[in-house]
């Protein structure tokens, strides 16, 4: 399926859940989904006969600046050999996205990473803890406004 067909399919199935899309002029066409509908969309994309996205290749967090965070899902179907990118945008003040860890287990650790690095909260995640940084670390390092602390546990951090 090409991106346009996928978009039409999603639009007819989840009319209000699909917010916008950019299908031409980009290397990877993407569709933006409402943060509280992503779980339904993900389940549909994995289970539907026409889409069969069985592989979540990458889930990443992005700081879009101006107070917006995004989660980006790169989906791939090994059976049908097509791909699509989903994006959800959430405000920094209320960074709640539905977790898709129950659909693709890949998302488990990658959502933890997005939480660790950007402070996005994935509702329904089985075990949302920091993954890379130490548990007692303050702040989310990949946010654009992040300030590196002077000391951590008595160790000087800057050079």
């Amino acid at each position, binding site marked *: 399926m090409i991106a346009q067909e996928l978009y039409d399919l999603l639009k007819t199935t989840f009319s209000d859940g699909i917010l916008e899309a950019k299908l031409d002029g980009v290397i990877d066409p993407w569709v933006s989904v409402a943060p509280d509908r992503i779980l339904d969309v993900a389940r549909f994309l994995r289970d539907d006969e026409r889409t069969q996205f069985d592989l979540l290749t990458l889930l990443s967090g992005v700081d879009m600046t101006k107070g917006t965070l995004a989660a980006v899902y790169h989906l791939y179907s090994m059976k049908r050999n097509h791909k699509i990118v989903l994006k959800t945008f959430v405000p920094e003040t209320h960074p709640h996205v539905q977790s898709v860890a129950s659909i693709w287990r890949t998302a488990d650790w990658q959502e933890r990473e997005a939480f660790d690095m950007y402070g996005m909260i994935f509702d329904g995640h089985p075990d949302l803890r920091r993954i890379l940084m130490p548990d007692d670390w303050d702040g989310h390092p990949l946010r654009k406004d992040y300030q*590196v602390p002077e000391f951590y*546990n008595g160790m000087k951090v800057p050079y």
Partner: protein
Amino acid sequence: MGLLNQRFENGNVLLTSVDDVLAWGRLSSLWAMQFGLACCAIEMMATGASHYDLDRFGTFFRSSPRQADVMIVAGTVTLKMASRIKTLYDQMAEPRYVLSMGSCANCGGPYWEHGYHVLKGVDRVIPVDVYVPGCPPRPEALMEGLLKLKEKIRKERLILKQTA
């Protein structure tokens, strides 16, 4: 014993100081702690394996800190890892030595500026005896570092009373 090998008739006496013998004994079998942290560890492995054969210098890797004389810190020390390194160092029996291998362990290496999770030099948590520069240092450089450490041990005096 290459120098002394089959040089003497039977029952000879060699004169030397006890300190020299102790130093000679310690430097001839420096057991290193097997402790790979990052890329440099791969070069350390290569040094220990068939091509470079670290064993000929009397150095081979032990898994337990309690059996090791020298800790080769090979790679990037992150803040999460730093406290563990301190613990491992404390577990080693004295006299103990630390060889810092690679720019990362020396000073933070390529991550010195933006590495918010990288400790800029392992000498911020444990004392270091020898620094080997490079990213990664070649196996020859690591060997050179160990030889330098041996020179240092050769000059150490354990029994002699320290003045001042």
